[in-house]
């Protein structure tokens, strides 16, 4: 974490040499709702994958596209654009 670094740990010019090292950040903690996929209805169009602002939807096995809950912020864009109504948002507290 940033507050554990000392001045000696910093690279010259504060350059970050490890590309994409911010990807450890768990933005999944942000959400109050999460998406649930109904595979019966899913037509594998990948619109949810391409329209997720967080790239939190990933291709999964058998050609489906599913939310990576580590990152998913629960915005609901996938739910709103799914042409097959295969995604619905449920409250985060629900199991």
């Amino acid at each position, binding site marked *: 974490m940033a507050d554990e670094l000392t001045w000696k*740990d910093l690279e010259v*010019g*504060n350059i970050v040499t490890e590309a994409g090292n911010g990807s450890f950040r768990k933005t999944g903690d942000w959400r109050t709702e999460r998406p649930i996929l109904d595979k019966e209805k899913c037509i594998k169009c990948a619109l949810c994958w391409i329209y997720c602002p967080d790239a939190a939807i990933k291709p999964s096995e058998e050609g489906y596209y599913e939310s990576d809950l580590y990152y998913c912020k629960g915005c609901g864009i996938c739910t709103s654009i799914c042409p097959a109504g295969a995604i619905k948002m449920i409250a985060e507290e629900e199991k």
Partner: protein
Amino acid sequence: MSRRVALEASHAVAEAVRMADVDVIAAYPITPQTHIPERLAEMVANGELSAAYIPVESEHSAMSTCLGAAAVGARTFTATAGQGLELMHEVVYVASSMRYPVVMAVCNRALSAPLSVWGDHSDAMAVRDTGWIQVFCQNGQEAFDLTLWAFRVGEDTKVLFPVMVHLDGFTLSHVTEPVILPEQSEVDRFLPRFQYPFALNPNKPMTHGAFGPPEIYSETKLAQEVAFSNSKKVILRGWKEFGDIFGRYYHPVEEYKTENAETLLLTMGAFTETAKIVIDDRRDKGEAIGLISLRLWRPFPFEEFRRTVKGAQLLIVFDRCISFGLGGPVFSEIRSALYDEEPRPKVVGIIGGLGGRDMSEDNFDYVINRGREIAEKGSDRMVETVGIR
């Protein structure tokens, strides 16, 4: 074979940039530095220098363009003065904190208002805190030498800081003087190719310029300060190497006839040469007086400076700038640098040479006499000046 030519100091700077085989030049006109980009444009147009000459649309963009070029590993140069330096002020800080070794010549010019295109040091004093290595030139030879040296030091992987080379506007920038130009082979021996270790390239994607949340900003500043102060070693080594190859050795503080001096006059920049004439006269008459000139301004040469003033009773500091409500900026830094020294000379400050007002030998005579008067009897003036009606 090195040759001795008559060169305007601005053109001497341009010549150093050419011999350093600079890659990117950001150019914007402002009096009195315009002769530098004009000469460089000629050189590029005639194939004497292979460089990307970018006629930017403002000084803020000039420095920003330099940052981009340095970030991909290009040797970069720009020049400015007065208002131009002020306009790029925020970018000047960034060049240092992002550790890009840009070299910039500044033809010191007074700051508005009122508008003045003529020389003084107020533009330089406004950038004291920006984290650039800064040197002041006295003559055309130094304009050439220090510009060349600037690339060597700034680009050193143990430094990676930008360097400002100050020339008094008009008083130095527009003066034609004899300059010894070295052989290109000597320059190539002195100045290695720029190898920037963090160049932006798709082969190794890096992020330059992440923002600093409170948890880390302080650490970045301490790291910058430590690295900046440590650059002194390379600054000195660069001057030693310069001397070994070109035969001219430079030091952070120049001492002129300071042996057993009771009184010392401190100057910076081109007026040093006028002041030296006054020192010569007074020495001939048996006065124990000498002159010191700060060549290295940042990082402040505490060690060398304190050593040179040991033994003097009085140090008279001549400033070419007023810091409103404070007095002479160099004067106040000098006093602070000597505060803990035992013994230390009495320090007085006199301001003059503003907005192109010349400093004659008579003016420097006045400075020395008035300086002694103030040391003896004190002063009830808000600010001590010379040559101001």
